[in-house]
């Protein structure tokens, strides 16, 4: 198994690109929900899948709506959006949704808009394009997260983790972008090209 790492400079560049991409995505979602969201500083790590699953156990709440959307291209992987039960119910209240089906539909649309705008902008900043598959959703207890197919095909992943927080509506979500070894190598190369252009 390869063991790729990011230097501090590479992390800095990726964090800044992610910050720009996330700001853009949040503005779109905030407009969609007619609410104001706060931005967090993106947290970036390369880790083994087992480590990621351990970290997910630290998320608050017993069960989550978990939606994912795969993307393909030079930069390929999967974006995942977690929203806990309480936040999901607050989202339903905010959007005046009455059924679970409507709520799942809203979360899927939120995932689609959030992750596709986020990943598209991130790809644009790295001078490439990505294609998306349809998002899917499941509701799972965290202790069954390691059964999820999304994580099985990854050995080492780069995890870009940011919080989506609509304070007034008490809606919190967490977004992860997962990429595989080949994309991590490609990403490192692009980050260094960007950095060199700045020097």
């Amino acid at each position, binding site marked *: 198994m390869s063991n790729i790492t990011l230097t501090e*400079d590479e992390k800095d560049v990726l*964090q800044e690109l992610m*910050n*720009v991409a996330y*700001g853009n995505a*949040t*503005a779109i979602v905030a407009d969609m929900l007619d609410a104001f969201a706060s*931005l967090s*500083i993106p947290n970036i790590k390369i880790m083994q899948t087992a480590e990621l699953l351990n970290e997910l156990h630290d998320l608050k709440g017993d069960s989550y709506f978990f939606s994912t959307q795969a993307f393909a291209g030079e930069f390929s992987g999967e974006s995942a959006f977690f929203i806990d039960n309480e936040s999901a119910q607050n989202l339903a209240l905010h959007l005046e949704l009455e059924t679970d089906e409507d709520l799942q539909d809203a979360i899927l649309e939120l995932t689609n808009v959030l992750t596709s705008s986020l990943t598209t902008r991130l790809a644009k900043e790295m001078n490439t394009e990505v294609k998306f598959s349809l998002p899917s959703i499941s509701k799972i207890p965290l202790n069954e997260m390691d059964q999820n197919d999304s994580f099985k095909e990854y050995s080492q992943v780069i995890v870009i983790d940011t919080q989506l927080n609509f304070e007034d509506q008490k809606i919190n979500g967490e977004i992860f972008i997962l990429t595989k070894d080949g994309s991590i190598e490609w990403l490192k190369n692009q980050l260094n090209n*960007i950095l060199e252009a700045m020097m």
Partner: protein
Amino acid sequence: MKYLVTDDSKLARLSIVKSLKAHVGDAEIFQAENGEVAVALVKEHKPDVVFLDLTMPVLDGYGALPLIKECNQKIKVIVVSADIQEQAKTKVMALGAEMHIQKPINADKMQEILELI
């Protein structure tokens, strides 16, 4: 003219400094990695223009902006942020920012900014 560029990202600072240098040549440009350092550098070097990010550790842009204006009301603060929500803009303008610009700033955008201030 003296300039202060505040951002926790080295890339973001380098990007702004590079665009700035293309227009202002040898002007003095200082750099800060968070709001707290920015306030200290404002007190020490008295810059005329401050480029300020919003999302930063230690002290963010919302916290630093009033402290910077408290040092000198005439300082022009340009908020440069990924947060392009209307409420963020309204908030920083109320705190005394000159303008709220979406990241990243290229040389053309920098020229527009410098012409406006």
